Every structure is written in C-alpha cells, then in structure tokens.
C-alpha cells in the first residue's frame, strides 16, 4: 500500500527531531534578529556583528558538512575536492556581488576593479548575465553540479573508487586552484572577489542584511537536512548503502551503481554550491585558497569528528571544529595546527564514529549501568564495523526492493 507523500515526509524526522528543528529555526529567524537589532549594543543580551557573522559562516560550513556526509557517510565516496564545489558556488554568486558594486569601486568604472587593473575593456563572455540575481542563483547550482556530473560520470563509469578517487578529486581541485590563481582567468586571481557593497540593492554590511542572510542560511541548512534525511531513509538511500557496503553484490542483484553514485555526488556538489553562495556575502571574500587541498580535507574532518553516516553528526562536527578554530586562531594561533593535527589522529584512532558515536556509547553505558557494565560498553571490534549498522532505520513502510514500484 502506498502512503501519501506528506505521510512519508513527516516520518523523515522523529517528533523530537521536528521539535529541535523548529527550535533551531525559531532562534535563528526570531531570537537572533531580535537580540541583534532591538537590544542596544551595551546590553549583555546583545548579539554582536561578530557573532552574527560567525554563526552564518559556521552554518554554511555545516551545510557543506551535510553534503560531504551524503557522499562519504552514505555512499562511501571520500571526496577531497568538495572545496572546489563550495568555491565554484561562491565565485558564481561573487560575480553577481561584484557587478552590484557598480561604479563604487576604487576606479569608479562599470567593470570590476581587477579588470580595470588588467586593462580589460569589456566583460568576458562568461560574465554575461552576471548582473541578474536569478542568473547568478542558477549558476550557483548549475556550475558545481555540471562539473561534478561530468567528472563523476567518467570516474564512476571506470569504477574508480577508494583512495584512487580521493586522489583524483584532490588533483581536480588543485588544478582548479592553479587556474583561478591566474589573473587572466578573469576571477580576480590571487585576491579573488572582495569589497562587496550591495546585494539586491541592500547594503551588504547593514545589520538587517546580515540578519536576513543568517536567516536564509538557517533555512537552507534546515531544508538540506530534511531533504538529506528523506533521501537516506528512502529506498534510494538503502540502495546507496548497499552500493557502499558491497558494490559488486548490489550490481549482481541488478542495480547500476553508476546512477546512484552519480546522483548523490551531483546533488552534494550543488548543495556545496549553495553553501558557497551564502558564505560569500556574509564573510565578504572569496579567493582561490578555498580550493586548496587543506580546505577540502578539513571538510572531511568536520564530518569525521561529528560522526560520518550521521547527518546530525556532520552538523555537530562542523560547528564544533569551526568554533574551536575561531577560538584557537584568536587565542593561540601557533597551536591551532597542532590541535587540528592531533584532532585528525585522535578521531580516526579513538572515535571512528565521531562525537555522535561517543554520545551513543555514553547513552548505552547509562542504560546498561544497572547491569554493571564495564567501560567501554562495546568492544572495539564492534565500533569498527561499517557505519551502516549504526544508522537506525526509521519506521518507513516497507517497499519491496524491485525496480518497479507497486501501484
């Protein structure tokens, strides 16, 4: 029997999950604006510019982490090139923001400053249409998705997987970084895009704009979370997990892994593009260093810290690592790399399921405390099992695993 769409949509999150999501949105859409705009700056309840920007930035990273978790945690594809898709989205939207500067740049030209500097007279062809918000919004989705689709199609078709795939994604983003570093490429070279003035005619630095951008980012994150949750709990998600855990078997049953992998890979890239587009107006700069190998690997670490194969884990990991980074780079800049390095090692060695796994272990420990269990409650072998076993399937109505859906 087929259940209605709303019914299935509702069960993607548990009632508690829906409540938490609603609370999160309430804070971001109402609490923060109120505390930022209405409460005077001197008051201890006032939320400062810094906090609003930082929150927006971290939420963008959380969105990237969810996108990363979709491919790594649920499809077993470790990408070391997600920074590229993030940056492509950022650049696509940055083009629009650059055009919004109009003649307010330091050269008072209709062209962006760096083009005046290069002595260019007209916009290159790929800048055509960048004046229009909707065209930019389209590019934000289309460019990363197209790059990912083409790259992924060839990679998955030749059945490249594991570390080989990771390495060539790294080579891809490295090549793109070199390309964007060139001044002649037409994206501002080394400095990238910065000094934005307006978005849709409103000042980028105005408190109201910041609050609205934060709100849009929170909505995007919440939407992505629900979409991702729905995807991974659907039949599609279970085929994906099968491909991850035993690709050959999934093929023998009759599924073509190419399209499953390609879909999740392309979707993930497009989500990264959205995150990049939201990141640029809030942080105020986009440059090729976002495509460095280090930036992409850091994304993988957020997911690993939070717990891969768990969407909430990805968000928690991104928030935790980035808040730690903000604190470290201000307080002990020289120790940040040490901390990050040890974090990489400690998480992979001792927390294969990340913070979420730790939380589950603690919960299990408290639950079984009456039975006088020793710490750790679970032997180490069990924690090293494929992550699939930890994804608790929600009560989805059972659909037979055939290609034809019952009417």
């Amino acid at each position: 029997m087929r259940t209605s769409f709303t019914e299935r949509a509702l069960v993607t999150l548990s009632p508690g999950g829906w409540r938490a999501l609603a609370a999160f949105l309430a804070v971001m859409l109402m609490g923060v604006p109120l505390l930022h705009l209405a409460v005077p700056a001197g008051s201890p309840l006032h939320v400062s510019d810094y906090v609003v920007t930082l929150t927006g930035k971290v939420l963008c990273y959380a969105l990237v982490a969810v996108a990363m978790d979709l491919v790594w945690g649920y499809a077993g594809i470790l990408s070391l090139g997600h920074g590229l898709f993030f940056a492509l989205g950022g650049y696509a939207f940055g083009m629009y923001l650059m055009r919004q500067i109009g003649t307010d740049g330091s050269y008072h030209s209709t062209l962006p400053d760096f083009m005046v500097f290069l002595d260019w007279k007209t916009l290159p062809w790929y800048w055509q249409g960048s004046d229009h918000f909707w065209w930019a919004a389209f590019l934000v989705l289309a460019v990363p998705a197209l790059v990912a689709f083409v790259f992924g199609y060839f990679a998955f078709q030749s059945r490249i997987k594991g570390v080989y795939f990771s390495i060539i994604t790294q080579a891809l983003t490295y090549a793109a970084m070199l390309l964007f570093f060139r001044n002649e490429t037409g994206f501002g070279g080394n400095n990238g895009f910065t000094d934005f003035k307006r978005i849709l005619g409103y000042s980028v630095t105005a408190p109201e704009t910041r609050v609205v951008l934060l709100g849009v980012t929170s909505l995007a994150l919440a939407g992505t979370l629900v979409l991702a949750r729905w995807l991974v709990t659907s039949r599609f998600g279970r085929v994906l997990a099968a491909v991850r855990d035993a690709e050959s078997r999934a093929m023998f049953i009759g599924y073509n892994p190419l399209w499953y992998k390609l879909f999740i890979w392309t979707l993930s890239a497009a989500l990264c593009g959205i995150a990049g587009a939201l990141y640029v107006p809030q942080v105020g700069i986009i440059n090729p260093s976002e495509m460095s190998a280090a930036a992409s690997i850091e994304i993988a670490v957020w997911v690993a810290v939070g717990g891969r194969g768990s969407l909430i884990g990805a968000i928690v990991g991104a928030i935790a690592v980035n808040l730690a980074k903000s604190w470290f780079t201000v307080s002990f800049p020289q120790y940040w790399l040490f901390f990050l390095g040890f974090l990489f090692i400690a998480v992979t060695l001792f927390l294969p399921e990340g913070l979420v796994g730790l939380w589950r272990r603690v919960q299990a420990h408290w639950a079984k405390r009456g039975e006088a269990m020793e710490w750790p409650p679970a032997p180490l072998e069990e924690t090293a099992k494929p992550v699939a076993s930890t994804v608790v399937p929600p009560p989805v109505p059972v659909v037979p695993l055939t290609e034809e859906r019952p009417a």
Partner: protein
Amino acid sequence: MKKLLFALLLACALPAWSALDPAVVHKLADDDSDQKIAAIQQLAQSVDPVAERLLKALSEDGVYVSGDTVFFSEGDKPVDAVTGKVIATPASNDSISINNRVRGVLDGALAGVKLFDPDAAVRLAAARALQEKVTPELIPLLTRAAKAETDAKVAPVIVQLLAQANLKNPDPVARLVAVQALAESASPNTRSLLLPLTDPATEKDDKVRAAAQTSLRAIDGKLAWGENLGRVFTGLSLGSILLLASLGLAITYGVMGVINMAHGELLMVGAYSAYAVQSLFRHYLPGAIDWYLPAAVPVAFFSAAIVGMVMERTVIRWLYGRPLETLLATWGISLILIQGARTLFGAQNVEVANPSWMSGGIALLPNLVLPWNRIVIIGFALSVLLLVWGLMNKTRLGLFVRAVTQNRPMAGCVGVPTQRIDTLAFGLGAGIAGLGGLALSQIANVGPEMGQGYIVDSFLVVVLGGVGQLAGAVYAALGLGIVAKFLEGWAGAVIAKIIVLAIVIVFIQRRPQGLFALKGRFADS
C-alpha cells in the same frame, strides 16, 4: 760598425714611430661627443700600443688635459698621451669626462684593440664581448683581425663578427655574403639581427631577403635543437625530483596500501636536515663548508626514516584496512610536522646554499647551459634508484617486502615477520623521501610548507605508474617531468600544470590500475 749604426738609427726612429697623431689625441679633449667618438675610432685603428693604454685610461676616467698636453695616469704616474712617456706632473689639470654614448663606443674600441692580443684566450674573450655591440665602423678593424687571426678557435668567431658588422653595409653584395655567413651561427642574438633583413620595409634587395630567410631557418633549426635538448634536460631534472619524492611513496603504498599524506612533510624533514647540517658546518667546520652536502645525506635519510617509523608505530599500524581514515590521520600528522618545523626553524624560508662545486654549469650550445646542481641531482636520483632496486631485489629485506606486497597473509604464514617488515618498509620509504628533500633543498625554497606542493605530484606519479611498481614510478616520473616541461614551453607553467593534471585524470579513468598493473589473482583485491 754598420750594425751598431743601424741599431742606433732604429733606436732614434722608434720613439718617432710610436707616437700618436697629436691632432687625434687632442680631439679627445673636445667638448663635442661626436669629436670624441671619431678620435676613439681612429685610435682603435692604430697599431701603437700607447693607443690601447690611452683608451684603457679613458674608460677608467684617467685622462686629463693640462694646457696643450693631453696625458693619462698609469700607476699614479702621468704619461703623455702622444709619446707614451712619463712626464712631470703638470701644475693644473682637467679630467676628460665621457657620457654613456661615448663609453659604448669606447668599450667596443677597447675590445677591438684586444683582438690583436698575443694571447688567443684574450682574443677569444674580446671577440665574444664584441658580439653584443658590433658596429659598421669596426669593419676595417675586423677585416684586419680576420686576416691576422691564426687560431682555429678564434677565427670563426671573428668571421662571424665581421659578417654581423657587414649586415648594415650599404653594399648589397657585402650584405648577402654576411647573411650567408651568419647561417653558421647558433645564437639567439644573431637571430634577432637577421630578422629585420627579411622585412621588405628595411631590406630592399630581394636576394639578401631570400638569403636572410634561408639563414634564419638554419639558425632556427639549431636553436630548436638547443631548446628541445634544454627541455628534455630540465624535464629529466624535474622527473628525477619527482622520482625521489615518489619512490618512497611507491614502497609504502605498495607494501601497506596506505596513502601517506605526510609524505611531503618527510621531504621537508630531509630538506631541513640539510639546513641543520649546513649550520653545524658553518659553526664548527667553516673550512669544509663545501662538503656539508655529502655529510647531510645520512642525516637526511635517518631523520626522515625515524620520523616515518614513529608514524607507523604510533598511528598507521592501528588503521589497517581503513585506507580512507589513514588518509585523514596522516594528514593530521603532516599538519603537526608543518607546525613543528615552524616552531623549530621559524615560519620563514631558510637559506640552504649550493656548495661551490655545484655552481656553474656546462655550456653545450650557445642557448643551452646545463647547471651543475641539476646534473648532480639527476646523478643522485639515479644512484638512489640503483640502491633501492638492489635493496628490493638482492637483499632478504627486499624479498620480504615484495612478499608482503604480493600477499600479506601468505607471507605471514611462511614466517615473514610482517609487522616488523611494515615498520622497516615505512622507514625505508620515509628515508628515501628524506633524500628527495635533501636534493630539493639545492634547487627549491626550504620552508615549513614546501612539502605540500609535492604531495599531489608524487601521488600522481605513483598512481600513474601503478601501485608497488618501481619501474612504473620511474617511467611515470620521468615521463611526467619531460611532458610538463615541453608543455611549459608551449603554454606557460600554470596551464602546463593544469594540462598535466587533466591528462593524468583522464589516464586514470582509462587505466585505473596504472601503467604497470599487477596481474593475476591479487590485482583486484
């Protein structure tokens, strides 16, 4: 008696014969630069040795006027410019100053005078120096020099010079001969000299234009040789660096299936060992500073090897069967090593100097110089390769390493201590990376982040060559190096890099197992 008389006569005649024309000498003191230039050119034609001394003094601003006497100082003594004899110091004097235009002519004239030096080496050097600033005014001098020249090495250079000078001769026949003679040259300079002669706007004579085209083609052919050989050479040198960087990686990846993202930082450890040894030599053995590099070889190998073995024992060993996590953990190690280098040696690049025996190079062709440091690195890479090959194929350790690479459980069953082999293999791979870093310190900047730039490249080499294949790594490294350098000549460094990455990505898609795939039962495991 007659002989004595003759000798006396000769002695009287000599001073008269050796004196310069006073009118010419006095023109030097003229305020007009054109007059000065004319005087210098006339002096340059003179066979009198005083002329050379005078011109040399003039180039050192040591010529003075006192009333009617022009004199120059030579070893703090005033010498009369006309007679070449030491005179009493005049009461007053004005220095003759020359501007840049005059100085250019003067330098040419001085080099022209040196063309008649008895020493062939001096003549050759003078002729080489003249190549840059030959003018039509030098034609009579050069003709004389060409006639007088007997040395087989110097003669062709002077003939070239004469041809160069004749290019602007108003007589088309002289130009034609000159253009044809220049076809023998292989210098980029001659090319730019001939180029205007192919243009109808500057050259009216059809025959000369046609001859210039032919000569240009001949020169281009020779230049292309030099350029292409140069590219092959720089490609080999880049390839040998890539080889040193990736040999170690090929071993660790082959044996343990582990992607070591900290491999670039092992290069850095090697490079910093070179720096440390250099500093020690500067401090304690300044006399033997040229020999710090051989002393740094074992230091670089063992320091990197120790870092590698510690990594293997503490982290990588615990992550077997989880290649993706190993990738993250080793990246963490690389961050710690980078920050460690920053804390120890500072965030700035440190200076590692080439020993004096590595500076300079061999000039094979006018546009091809092979620098010694690159030659040494190619030789070093070759010897490391030989050593590794011997180690892998002729020793017990190598046998065990190959056994573990092919089939770990079976090797363990027949008594190979797989865990110890892992540690040793990792140490070996890391040590070779240290040697690569040592080589790198001689041609690249040494800084905390130097390893990051090589990690992607060395992975591409390993992946391209096929996992666990030394031969594959060799072909892939040298091939990538040479292809990269040729593309660089054609499209510029950045585009070349992007094209190489694109080629490798496409290649891996076609042949995921690399150039030299393992065949048989374990190929797909």
